C-alpha cells in the first residue's frame, strides 16, 4: 500500500523512457497511444486508491534512510488530492490525443514527453524535499517547454522560447532560495526546515530573503501577475491536450501546490506571506479577467482566464493564512482552504474541458478566432454542449462545480471579515460570467460562416474525452457533499491548515535495518544515527572481527554476503 507512493512516479517514468522505443514500432499509427493510456489509467487507479484507502499521512523514506539524510516522499491529503487531479486530467488529455495528435508527426516523442511531464508533476506533489521538488519541477517544466513547441511552427517555437527562458529564471531563483535555506537551517527536507523555523520562533531575515526568492520562483511557475508574461503565449500555442495539461494541472502542481506547501508547511502560514499571496491572487484575478475580456483568440482568452482563476485559489490560500494568524475560528480558515482547493480541482476539470473543446473546434474549423466560429454549436453538437457546460461551470452558474467553490471562497472571506476581498471576488466572478457569455454568444449562437458550415463533429476519442470532463463538471460538485468531502477534501484541507504540524503527522515507512540485531528494535531503526556509539550490535561484531572493519553493513542477510565477498578479497 505504502509502496504505491513511489510507483506513482516510477510508472509514468518507465513509460516515458519506453515510449521513444515503442513509438518506433508503432510509427504514426494511433496505437502509439495505447501504452500511455494504459499507464495513465493505472496511475489514476493507484492514486484514487491511495486517496481513498489510507487515512493517515504517509512519509516514505526513499532508499530506507529514516534519518533525515535521505529524501522523503510525503503522501498527505493535499498530495493525494493533487495526484488524483493530475492523473484524471492526464488520462483524459491522452484520450483526446489519440485523434488530435494524428496530425502531428513522431507520436513516440509526444507520448514520451507527456508521460515524463506526468511523472514530473507526480514527483512534485509527492516530494517531501525542497531540492527534490525543484528537480521534478524541472522535469515537468522541460517536458512542457518541448511540448509547447511540438508543432514546430514559428509562433509555437517563440512561445516555447519565452516560456523556457522565464521558466529557467524561476528555476534559478528557486535554486538560490534552496541554497539560502540549506545554508541557514542545514536541511532540505521541508518538514525539518519548518520545524527549525518554528523552533527559532519565526523566520529570520536570511530566510525571509529566501522566501522572496521562492515566491518569485513559484510565482513565475504559477504565472501569477506580475510574473505571468509567458502564459498567454505558451498555453495557446501548445497542442490542445497539452494546453489542457498546462492550464489544468501543471501551473497548479509546480506553482500553486508548491506555493501552498511552502507557505503553510515550511513557513507555518506566516501572515506576511499570506498577505503577499492575497495581493498576488487579487492582481491575478482582476488583471487576468480584464485581459481575458479583450481577447478574440479563443485559446488566448482561456489562457488569461487561467491566470484569473488560479488567482482565486491563491487568494483563498493567502486569506486562510492571514485569518489563521488573526485567530479567526479554525472552521472559517478551513473553509477558505477548502474553497481554494476545491476551486483548484474544479478549475483543472473545466479549464481542461474548455481547452479540449477549443482543440476540437480548431481541429474541425482550423481557426481559433471567436468571430469566425459563429454557430459551431449546431455543426458540432457534442462539442458545443460540452463547451456550454464548461463555460457555465467556470462562470459559476449553479449547480455546476464552479459555483460551489466560488461560493465557499466568498463565504469564507465574509466570515473571516475580509469584506473587500469578498467583494472583489464577487466582481471578478461577474466579469468571468461576462467574458464567457461572449464566448457562448460567438461560438454557439450567430450565423455560421462558410468555414463553420464545412465543419464536422470531432472524432470519437475527442468527443469521449470532452464528455467525460463535462460529466466531471457535474460530478465534482459532489465533493461539497459532506460524506465525499470528509473523504476527499477534508484531509487535504487538514494538511494545509495544520501548517508545520503537517510534516509531523502520520506513519513513517522506511527499511527496518538490522533486523537480526538482538538489541531492541527501536535502537536498530536508529542505527544510522549512532556514529560514535560505543558498541555495534552483535551481528556487526562478528563481521568486524572477520574483516577488520573493512566494510559497512546493510540489512543482515546481505551483510553476511558482504562478509563472504570481502573474506576472499584480501
Amino acid at each position, binding site marked *: 500500500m505504502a*509502496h504505491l507512493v*513511489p*510507483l506513482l512516479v*516510477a510508472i509514468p*517514468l*518507465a513509460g516515458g*523512457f*519506453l515510449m*521513444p*522505443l515503442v513509438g*518506433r514500432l508503432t510509427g504514426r499509427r494511433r496505437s502509439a497511444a495505447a501504452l500511455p493510456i494504459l499507464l495513465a489509467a493505472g496511475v489514476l487507479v493507484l492514486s484514487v486508491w491511495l486517496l481513498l484507502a489510507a487515512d493517515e499521512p504517509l512519509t*516514505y*523514506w*526513499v*532508499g*530506507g534512510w529514516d534519518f533525515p539524510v535521505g529524501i522523503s516522499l510525503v503522501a498527505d491529503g493535499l498530495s493525494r488530492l493533487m495526484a488524483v487531479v493530475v492523473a484524471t486530467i492526464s488520462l483524459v488529455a491522452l484520450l483526446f490525443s489519440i485523434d488530435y495528435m494524428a496530425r502531428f508527426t513522431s507520436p513516440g516523442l509526444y507520448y514520451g514527453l507527456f508521460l515524463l511531464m506526468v511523472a514530473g508533476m507526480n514527483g512534485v506533489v509527492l516530494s517531501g524535499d525542497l531540492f527534490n521538488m525543484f528537480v521534478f519541477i524541472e522535469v515537468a517544466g522541460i517536458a512542457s517547454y518541448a511540448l509547447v513547441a511540438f508543432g514546430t511552427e514559428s509562433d509555437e517555437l517563440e512561445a516555447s522560447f519565452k516560456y523556457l527562458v522565464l521558466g529557467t529564471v524561476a528555476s534559478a531563483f528557486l535554486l538560490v532560495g534552496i541554497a539560502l535555506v540549506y545554508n541557514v537551517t542545514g536541511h532540505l527536507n521541508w518538514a525539518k526546515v519548518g520545524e527549525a523555523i518554528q523552533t527559532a520562533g519565526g523566520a529570520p531575515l536570511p530566510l525571509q530573503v529566501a522566501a522572496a526568492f521562492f515566491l518569485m520562483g513559484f510565482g513565475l511557475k504559477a504565472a501569477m501577475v506580475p510574473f505571468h508574461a509567458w502564459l498567454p503565449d505558451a498555453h495557446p500555442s501548445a497542442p490542445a491536450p497539452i494546453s489542457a495539461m498546462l492550464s489544468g494541472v501543471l501551473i497548479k502542481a509546480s506553482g500553486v501546490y508548491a506555493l501552498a506547501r511552502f507557505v503553510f508547511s515550511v513557513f507555518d502560514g506566516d501572515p506576511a506571506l499570506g498577505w503577499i499571496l492575497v495581493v498576488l491572487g487579487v492582481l491575478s484575478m482582476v488583471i487576468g479577467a480584464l485581459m481575458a475580456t479583450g481577447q478574440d483568440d479563443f485559446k488566448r482568452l482561456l489562457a488569461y482566464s487561467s491566470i484569473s482563476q488560479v488567482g482565486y485559489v491563491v487568494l483563498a490560500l493567502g486569506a486562510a493564512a492571514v485569518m489563521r494568524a488573526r485567530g479567526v475560528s479554525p472552521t472559517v480558515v478551513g473553509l477558505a482552504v477548502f474553497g481554494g482547493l476545491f476551486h483548484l480541482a474544479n478549475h483543472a476539470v473545466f479549464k481542461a474541458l474548455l481547452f479540449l473543446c477549443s482543440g476540437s473546434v480548431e481541429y474541425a474549423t482550423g481557426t481559433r478566432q471567436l468571430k469566425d466560429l459563429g454557430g459551431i454549436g449546431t455543426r458540432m453538437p457534442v462539442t458545443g454542449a460540452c463547451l456550454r457546460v464548461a463555460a457555465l461551470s467556470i462562470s459559476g452558474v449553479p449547480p455546476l462545480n464552479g459555483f460551489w467553490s466560488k461560493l465557499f471562497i466568498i463565504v469564507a472571506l465574509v466570515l473571516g471579515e475580509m469584506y473587500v476581498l469578498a467583494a472583489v471576488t464577487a466582481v471578478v466572478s461577474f466579469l468571468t460570467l461576462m467574458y464567457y457569455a461572449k464566448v457562448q454568444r460567438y461560438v454557439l449562437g450567430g450565423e455560421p460562416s462558410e468555414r463553420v458550415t464545412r465543419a464536422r463533429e470531432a472524432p470519437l476519442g475527442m468527443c469521449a474525452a470532452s464528455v467525460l470532463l463535462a460529466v466531471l463538471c457535474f460530478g465534482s460538485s459532489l465533493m461539497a457533499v459532506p460524506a465525499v468531502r470528509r473523504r476527499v477534501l477534508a484531509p487535504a484541507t487538514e494538511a494545509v491548515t495544520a501548517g508545520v504540524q503537517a510534516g509531523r503527522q502520520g506513519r513513517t*515507512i*522506511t*527499511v*527496518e535495518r538490522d533486523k537480526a540485531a538482538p538489541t531492541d528494535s527501536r535502537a536498530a531503526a536508529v542505527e544510522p544515527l549512532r556514529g560514535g556509539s560505543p558498541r555495534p550490535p552483535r551481528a556487526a561484531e562478528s563481521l568486524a572481527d572477520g574483516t577488520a572493519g*573493512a*566494510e*559497512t*553493513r*546493510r*540489512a543482515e542477510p*546481505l*551483510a553476511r*554476503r*558482504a562478509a563472504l*565477498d*570481502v573474506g576472499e*578479497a*584480501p
Partner: protein
Amino acid sequence: MQGMSPIVKNITRLVAGFIVLFGAYIVLYGHVTPGGGFTGGVILAGGLALVVLAFGEAFARNVLTHEVAKVADSMGALLFLLVAVLGFAGGVFFTNFLPAGTLGHLVSAGTIPIANLGIGIKVGAGLFGAFLALAAFRRTTGAGQERADVLQSHS
C-alpha cells in the same frame, strides 16, 4: 559535411579510443574517485562527437547512427530505473540492496556502480544524439536553408 583534414583524422584515430576509454573509466570508478556517470557520460559523448566532427557525416550515418543513440539512451535510463525499482527487494524504493563490499574496490558501494553505468550510457548516448541532431550535420528546411548549406561547406 565531409569531415576534416587528414591530420585531424589521424590524431582523432589516435586519441578517440583513449577518450572513450577514459570516459568508461570515469563512469565505472565514479564511486571511488572523482567523476561518475554524468561526467563519464559527457566525456563519452564528447569523444564520439570528436569522431563525428573529424570523420564527417558518412561515419555517423553508417556506424554511430541517431537510432543507436536513441535506443541506448532509453536503455540506459531504464537500467537506472530498474536499479531503483529493484530497491524494493531491499525493503523500499531505491534501497541500496547490494552489499557495500570493500571500500575503494570497483565492486563496492552496492548498486552505485550499476546506477553509474546506467547513467553513463544514458547521458553519453543522449548527449551524443542531441549533438548529432543539433550541430553535426543538420539538414535544414525552410527559410534559412540555402544560406546555411553554403556556410556549412565553408567550415
